[in-house]
Every structure is written in C-alpha cells, then in structure tokens.
C-alpha cells in the first residue's frame, strides 16, 4: 500500500468520524469545531488529488473564515449544552432512512464503474496541474459566465445582508 493510499484511508477515517461528531455531539461549539476538522480533511483529499491550490483555498476560506463566523453565531447565541443526541423521534428516523437510501443508491450507481477507474499510480500530470495559473486561466476563459454569475450572487447576498442589518432611522 503506497503512502498516498495510507494517507487516504487515514484521512477518510478522520472525515467520517468528524462528520459523525458534527451531528452527534451535545455541545454545539464542539460540533462546529468538528465541522472545521472535517473541512480540513476534505482539503487533504484535494491535496491527495494534486489540487494544491484548492487545498489551500479550502482551508483559508471555508475552514478559516466561514466557520469562524459560524462559531461566532454559536457562541453569541449560546444555545446551551443540550443537543439532539438521545432523542430519537420520527423526524430523526425518517431523515436517517432517507440518507441511508441515498447512500446506497449512490454506491450502487458508482460501484460498477470504479474498477480500474482513475489515473494509475504514478501517472504523469502536466506541470502546473492544480496550480493557481491553470485554475485562473480556466475561470477567466471557459468558465467566465458561471464565474461572473457567482460574483453577482455574492453581491446580491451582501446587499441583502446589509439591508437586513441596517439601523432603523425613524
């Protein structure tokens, strides 16, 4: 088993365990922090696929900025230490069933095609693969329209947030 495979399995275990902790732990702050860890393990998956720019940007933006703001909200609102773990109601059972069905469907769809899929170990990637230069070029040429639409989406969200947070001047 190569180093890359070992790292993949270790990372997969971390990813699954932290994802489980997000929904199962009592303390909301610990849940938010395990989501941060989970996002970092996602970033390591990107790194294992040689997308080093995405690895760094995932940590900078998602784990380092967006989740900090999540944590602010959790800490300021202080929902207390009572979580949903332990209360198995109808909603929880239904959601778990739906998630299990989706997971099985996804695995059944993907499994036949997985045999021999992907580049063989040691495949030579073009130089600069996964770097900022390649990504930037694609974003500004082939994917310019989705990029601009996403920017407008963010602008709309910002304007909405500013409007909702304005001081009422009577």
């Amino acid at each position, binding site marked *: 088993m190569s180093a890359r495979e070992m790292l993949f399995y270790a990372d997969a275990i971390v990813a699954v365990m932290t994802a489980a902790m997000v929904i199962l732990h009592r303390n909301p*702050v*610990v849940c938010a922090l395990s989501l941060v860890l989970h996002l970092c393990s996602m970033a390591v998956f990107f790194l294992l696929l040689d997308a080093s720019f995405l690895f760094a940007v995932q940590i*900078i933006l998602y784990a380092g900025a967006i989740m900090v703001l999540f944590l602010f909200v959790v800490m300021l609102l202080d929902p207390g230490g009572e979580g949903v773990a332990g209360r198995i109601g109808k909603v929880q059972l239904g959601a778990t069933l739906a998630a299990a069905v989706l997971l099985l469907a996804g695995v059944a769809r993907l499994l036949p095609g997985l045999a021999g899929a992907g580049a063989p170990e040691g495949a030579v990637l073009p130089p600069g693969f996964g770097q900022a230069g390649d990504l930037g070029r694609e974003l500004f040429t082939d994917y310019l329209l989705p990029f601009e639409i996403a920017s407008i989406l963010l602008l709309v969200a910002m304007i909405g947030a500013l409007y909702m947070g304005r001081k009422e001047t009577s």
Partner: protein
Amino acid sequence: MTDSTTMVSWGSWALAALVKIGVVLAVLMTVVGNIVLVERKVAGWIQDRVGPNRAGPWGLLQPLADGIKFIFKESITPERAYRPLYLIAPALSLTTALTTFAVIPFADRFVVLGAEVAPLIADLDVGLLWIFAVASLGVYGVVLAGWASSNKYSVLGGLRSSAQMISYELAMSLSVVGVIMAAGSLRLADIVGAQSATVWNVVSQPIGFLVFLTSAFAETNRLPFDLPEAEPELVAGYHTEYSGMRFLMFYMAEYANVVLSSSLMVLLFFGGWHLPFIEGMLPSAPPGVAGLAQLGIFSLKLSFFLFLFIWVRWTLPRFRYDQLMNLGWKVMLPLALANAAWTAAIILWGWI
C-alpha cells in the same frame, strides 16, 4: 504534491526534514525568547529608562529567568471552564504559529558537497497560501480560548480579536495579490527571485506594502491594534484565565506571529536575501559562503522589522474598536484593491 521525494530515498528525505525542522524550531524559539528581552529594553529606552538589567549583564539572562518562572507557576483552571477546549486553545495557537514557518525560505538553494540544500522545510508550490491557511486556523485558538474560559471579559476579548483578525486577513491577502502578480508564482523563493530580477516590491507597490504592514500589526494583535488585549478594557482579553505554561504558549505564539509577519515583509516586499550590489559577487564565492551571506542578509532585514514592530508598539496609542474596523474595511480593503489594479497596470506597461 511537489517535493523532492523522487530525487532521494525516503530515509534521507525524512532525516533531512527532521534536521531542518529541529534547526528552525531551535532558532525560532531562541529568537522568540530573546525578543521579549529586546522588547523590554527598547521599551525602556523609548521611555527614557533602562530596561531589565538585573538578571545578568545587560539583562541577558532575563528570558531564562522568565522561562523558569513560567514553568514553576501554577496553572489554574477556572471551575466552569469547558476543559477540552480550554486546554486545546493555547496549543492550537502555538502550533499554527510555528507551522507557518515550514515554508519560509531563509536563503536560496545551494549545492554543498554534491548535494543540493534547500534552506526551507517544505518547498510548496502554494507556499504563500499555506501561510494564510495556517494563519486563518490560528484564529480558532483565540476564539476558543475566549469562549472556553467561561468569563465575560474573555468571551468579549476573544470575539473582538477574532473579528479583527479575519477583517485584516482579507486586506492582507489582497495586498499580497500584487506581489503574486509581479512574481507570477505562489512560491516564496520565486517571489524573492522575481524581486532580484527587477526591483523590490516595496518600490513598485508602496501602497501594497503599507496595507500589508498595517494588516500585519492587526493580525498579530500588536499595538496600535491591541484592543483585544487592552488592560483597561478587558483585563487581559482572551488569555485572562490562563496562567503558567498555558499563558506562556499564548505569549510565544504572539511573538512567533510577529517573527512570521516580519519574515513575510522581508520576503514579499524587501527582496528577501537579495541586496542589489551583492548579487554580482555571489556566484563566484564558494557555495556555502553564498548561502550564509544570504542568510545573514535575511537576518539583518528581519531584525530591522522586529525592531519596527517594537518601536511602533511603544510609540503609537491604541485604536478604538470602531476606528479599527473602519480602517480595516473602509480604508485598507479599497487600498489593497487599488494596489492590485496599479500592479496590473505597471505589469502591462512593462515597468516590472
């Protein structure tokens, strides 16, 4: 992942990495320990008094005395603190502060005794982004310390500090966009190389440098941006409830961040290990000597910036929190964007 594993076997690669990590850690911890003394001495001179001079000639043993004091101090844990996070927070702060040094190059690659030595621990292709990534994880140390202490002043200090840090992180990253454009690469060694070939980035992008300087002060919570730690307002902010070794970890993390910001300023804006007139002499010198000379130049520039951090701290008064956030969002961010536009213009015009 790009590294040199294809060139050497696993064992020697691991050994070289461990040796480099050991050296960098040892030097860094020494610098962090002594910068405390330098700070107190310089503070004393600015305030027209002598700093510590009891613990040894010129107070040189003061860091040792402080270290011993911290080790023997009792680490008191507040009763209602959330223990797991309370204990993790200082470790997180210190770990992230130290991990950023993995990509800082101290000199150019050189060949000695037939082997190529790269004076940095990990030559990542996205080196600069690694620093920002790990630094943004460092915010968690602060915010968790504030929350887990179960103390109103700490929570306020932690929230203020982390809000300040993420605001100025944005301005910092944008001010560096100009540097990345000028160098065409995210590797720190490439950025220094690009400055050697043209001009230092402080000359071609002065506004970018000023934004970076200000953001670095805000990121490290140093005066004039140290409201989160201000005694009159918040006792000691997010590290109020920490004593002994745990406080020492926060303290060391803060100074490690100062050293990191100074190193970044040297590398990104002041040409790293490059001096204009030295470059001609270096290829003819024996290989180790060139590396050492570059290391010396880097250290000298680094010392100047460390002195600058201390100088500004004891000269300027503190910003009020709303002034601070105003500055970060309404002044630094537009200036950083203007700097990016300016850099794009001068690249197109062919000036750099």
